[in-house]
Structures are given as C-alpha cells and as structure tokens.
C-alpha cells in the first residue's frame, strides 16, 4: 500500500495499511478504530500523534506496540514484520516501552521506587548487576542521587518525580522506542516542561525514538520532529512539525490549532459536536459533516462539495514530506 522513499536505515516502527476493528456492542456494527494508516517512526525521531479522544490514536499506538493485533495491514519493527508468537512479542516489548498518562495509577503504591524500576528487569530475567542498572535508569530519568530514591514509596514523591520513576522503569531495559501516551497531561504546569525536556534529552543522548500520543499541540511544538493528525481512524495530515503547525493544510488541523488558548489573534474555529462514531464512518471525506469548508459554502465555490460528500480520500502515503487528506488542498 505504501511507497516509502528509500531511507538508509529502516524505521524503528512502522504501520503499513493498518486497520483495527472492534466488534460493537448490541446492535452497533464494527467499530473501525483505526481505518487504514501508514505511519513511520524513524530511528532517533520524535513523532507526535495528535487528535481528539476517540480518534483512534491510542489504539494505533497500542497496535504499534504489539498490544493489539491489526485486523489488516502490518506493523514493522526495524523493517521486519512483527511476529505475534508470544516469545517474539516478549523480546519485542523489551525494545518498545510504554509511558502512560497518570503516574499515580501506573505505580503500585506498595512497591518502592527500586522495586518499580527493577520489575522490568526481573520479568525479562536480566542477569547482570540489577542494582547498578536501576541506579543508572533513575539517574537518566533525572532522579539524582538515585540511591536516595530506592526505598521511597510513590506517596512520598511529587507528581513529577512519579512520572520520572515511570520513565526510569521504561529506560531500565535499554529500549529503542518509547511510546508515551499523554505523558504530561496529568502534571502541573511547572512540572510539564521538566518532563518534556527530559524526553527531548533522552532522544539526544540515547538516540531513542519517541512516539508521543497527545491532544496537546503545544507539546508537539515543544519536542516533536513530525506531527501526524488523526481523525476518526485515519491520519488526515502529516509532516514536519514546523510545516504542519505553522501552515496547516487540513481544515481539521486548522480548527485544532485555532482553539489552542496560547495562540493569540487566530480566529477561533470551534467545531460543533464531538468526533463521530467509529461504527458509522461518514461517506466521502470522513470529516465533511463537521468541516467548516463545507459548512461555509467554500467547498461549493471550489466545486468540490460533491467530492467531499461522496468521494473517499486515499490513505496518506509515507514519504517524509507534508501531506493532507483533503479535497480542498490543491484545488483552491
């Protein structure tokens, strides 16, 4: 499905034509949570996957981590298709680690910091010096001196420190990739920048690849090399952060940007309603029922309204450029 431009090293993680469907409850049909996505996370790159709740971004991230199996398409790690045999998955999960939104929920309140970080090593039967490894991971996550934190419990730590413990738990296995799902949205404003700076430094110092799932465009501007905007199971715009966030092409990206409170002077485009239901994806462009270009009559003037309502858009190709899945792009 994809025609990727040849790159020297294969991407750390890649989705090719990935769809994930869940069976709906009761009379509802299949929910197409991810509906045909091509996405590449190059080695050493930070990609922000942005969109509203329910757009499928977390499902896509889970699929890239081998936690969901795609109903069609495939996931590649380092250019090799992911095998879902349990032994292969265990080895794969050592290389791809997850950091979740709420550090308080992610940490066992009765485990000390040492136990929390060492858990991954024990699961993967690490045979070297466990203590040194844990200390090293805590130090990298910015908890110094690490020994001072070994015997602390989560309730004795601040929110930012807890998130650092979670990150240390991910780092201890020397992963190639970290997938972070809303890593700072439950943290205080002052701590947020500290954690983002840590993620950025891990990429620079360890060469880690990072996929950050978020609804926060400010976060993407702060740390991401590339931004992929997801709407109702599809990536609707993707490209280098500067281009996507400074010159957004898709009306959905434009609307998302316009409601970021920090951007002064931009005319606010508040979309009515919430993202529609993945069990009933609209025909044509899946965004057309909420699209301001269609609603304002602009699409009719451009002579594309019929296409917006009936003609589906192709999956965005991989390629390293900036692209948007919208009938209006290039027609006006």
């Amino acid at each position, binding site marked *: 499905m994809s025609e990727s431009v040849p790159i020297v090293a294969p991407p750390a993680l890649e989705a090719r034509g990935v769809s994930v469907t869940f069976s709906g409850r009761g009379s509802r049909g299949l929910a197409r949570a991810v509906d045909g996505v091509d996405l590449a996370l190059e080695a050493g790159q930070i990609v922000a996957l942005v969109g*509203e*709740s329910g757009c499928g971004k977390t499902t896509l991230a889970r699929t890239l981590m081998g936690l969901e199996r795609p109903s069609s398409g495939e996931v590649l790690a380092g250019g090799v298709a992911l095998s879902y045999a349990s032994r292969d998955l265990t080895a794969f999960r050592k290389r791809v680690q997850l950091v979740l939104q709420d550090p308080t929920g992610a940490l066992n309140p009765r485990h000390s910091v040492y136990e929390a970080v060492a858990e991954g090593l024990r699961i993967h039967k690490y045979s070297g010096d466990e203590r040194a490894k844990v200390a090293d991971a805590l130090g990298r996550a*910015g*908890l*110094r001196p690490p020994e001072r934190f070994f015997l602390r419990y989560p309730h004795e730590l*601040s*929110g*930012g*420190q807890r998130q*650092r413990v979670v990150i240390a738990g991910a780092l201890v296995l020397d992963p190639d990739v970290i997938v972070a799902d809303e890593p700072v949205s439950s943290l*205080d*404003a*002052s*701590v*947020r*920048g*500290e*954690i*983002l*700076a*840590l993620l*950025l*430094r891990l990429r620079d110092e360890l060469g880690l690849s990072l996929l950050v799932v978020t*609804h*926060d*465009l*400010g976060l*993407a*501007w*702060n*740390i991401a090399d590339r931004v992929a905007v997801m709407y109702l199971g599809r990536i609707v715009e993707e490209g280098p*952060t*500067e281009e996507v*966030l*400074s010159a957004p092409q898709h009306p959905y990206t434009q*609307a*998302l*940007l316009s*409601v*970021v*409170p*920090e*951007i*002064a002077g931009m005319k*606010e485009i*508040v*979309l009515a309603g*919430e993202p529609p239901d993945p069990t009933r994806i609209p025909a044509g462009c899946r965004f057309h029922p909420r699209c301001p270009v269609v609603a304002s009559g602009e699409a009719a003037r451009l002579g594309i309204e019929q296409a917006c309502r009936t003609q589906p858009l192709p999956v965005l190709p991989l390629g390293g450029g900036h692209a948007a899945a919208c009938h209006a792009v290039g027609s006006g």
Partner: protein
Amino acid sequence: MALLEFDDVSVTYRSHGTDVPAVRGVSLAVQAGESLGIAGESGCGKSTLVGTVLRLLPKSAKVGGRVLLEGEDVNEMTWGRVRAVRWAEASVVFQGAMHALNPVQRVGDQIAEPIVLHSPGTSDKAAKKRVSELLEQVGLPADRADSYPHQLSGGQKQRIMIAMALACSPKLLIADEPTTALDVMVQAQVLDLLTSLVRELNLGLVFISHDLSVLATTCDRVAVMYAGQIVEEGPASQVFDVPRHPYAAALAGAFPRVGDPRFRYAPAGLPGDPPFPGELPGGCDFHPRCPVSIERCATDVPPLLTVGDHRVACLRADERLNLLALTSEGEVGV
C-alpha cells in the same frame, strides 16, 4: 459593593498537632459580570481559598479574615443561611465533576433536585420547564433531560454540571478546573459557554486552573498563587503576556506559543517543587526555585505592591518587567 470579596483571608489546617497554613492573607474581589482566574500549582491553596466561600472546608480548617458575599460575611452566617446561600447565591462546578453524576438517575431529575430543594412545592411541570431552559442555556437539546449519564460524552456531562450549578440562578459561579479532563475542542466549547454565561446572565465567575493560558483567554483578571499567597494579580492578558513575577512567568512559559520559534525544542519548566505549607523557606517563599533570586530574597518578605491596576510581590519586580526570557532557560533536574 463587590459580589464576592476576600478580605485578608487565611486558612490553617490542623495536622498532626501543628497548624499548617494553606492560605495566607489573600485579598481579592469579584464584581458581577466579571471573571477572575486563580492560577497555581497543586497545593498552592487555590481550591482551599474558594472552599471558604460556601463553607465547604473540613472542620479542621480555621478561617481568618472575612469572606463577603454581597457584603454578608460568610463566616458569620447560621447553617440555615449557608444552606440557603449555596446554589441560590453561589454554586460550584467541581473538578472532574462529571464523574459526580448519579449513574442510575436521569440527568434532568438531577438538575431538578436543587430547584425542588430550594423552592419546596415547585410543581413537576414547572421544574421540567426550568430544566429545559437550563439545558438550552448550556447548549444541549431539551430531550437530553431523559438521558442517563453514560449516554452522554464528557463534554455533555460537563454541560449538565454547569446547568445544575445555574439551576437556582446564582449570582456567582465557582469553577474548579472545569475543563481539565476534557479534549481541546470540547474544552474550547465549554470555555466559550462559560464566557457567554458571564456576559448574558451578568454572573460573577471564579475560575481555578493550573493552566494560565486557559485563564488568559477566559477571564478578565487573573491572580497567581504560590504557597498560599497571591504573588501577582492583574488584567488577564497582562499577567499572561508580560508577567512581572518570575513564578507567573514560569507558569506562562510552561504552555508554549505554538509557532513561536523561542519555544521550539525548548520546553520551559520550573525546577523543584513547591514548599510544604508547614515548612516555608522564609523571605520570599519562591526564592529557592526562583531563577533570578538575589541574596536579600532569602531574608526579606516582598510586599504585594500595587502598580496601576496590577499587584505583584517580588523584590525585583521594578528591575525586570519581563523575566520570561530568563526562566525559559531553566535547567532540568529535581
């Protein structure tokens, strides 16, 4: 007369045999039709401060100073009067309140509950009519009254909570992190709703958030709290765009301006943690974390000085009007 006035309000909690000061000498006022934002980190005392308005604090809390609701001291009220004032004079939309809805009761009945409690004898028909009005006011179709909470999205549930808070036509609305759990687009919808309610109903709004950028777009004025005190207060856009206090500058810098090259690959944070209320560092309480502190910050307490329509408590406020540039270089560490 101000709709709400905090006059030198302090709150101390009794904990393990010692008094812990959570709020220390806060003075603020909100007029009808005005919105006031209160910003600060977890534990800075912002929720405790607004808890004094409807006497919502636990028994261990000692409140000093005066909290005046339309000139009437809340602390002098009898319990009967407090109950009458709740909902009808002032009401609260709590953080994560959408989880507070009863899952097995239709939302219309939940909105009607305070109406019937405050005016016993209200007919079912009158209550229903009022519920329809309220739903329309918060931008929901009237037939949503028959829905159960699980049939509604997060944004719709938050609208229901706002409708409930408006049920007895209060003059003051207190919103404690009302959009924190919501998506960007839904957050924008709820913020627009709050702004239009302030305008249309001439409400006073007290809006608490740790996100200074949200307050800057919604509120007329913003107060920034640190360790139980106000460190800066002024017109919202000024506090956000040209903060005078280094702490306000750090909060403003934490949310990057998308498109501004200064923030690209440069997340700005503030090292360290706020002090425990029982172990204040002395001098200016922000000095251990302050990127621009000088020697006398450790010993001298900065007074909250008024300059025009702006108040700021920093010994160096005159020297540097905008400290944003300095704080954005913050070192990472614990």
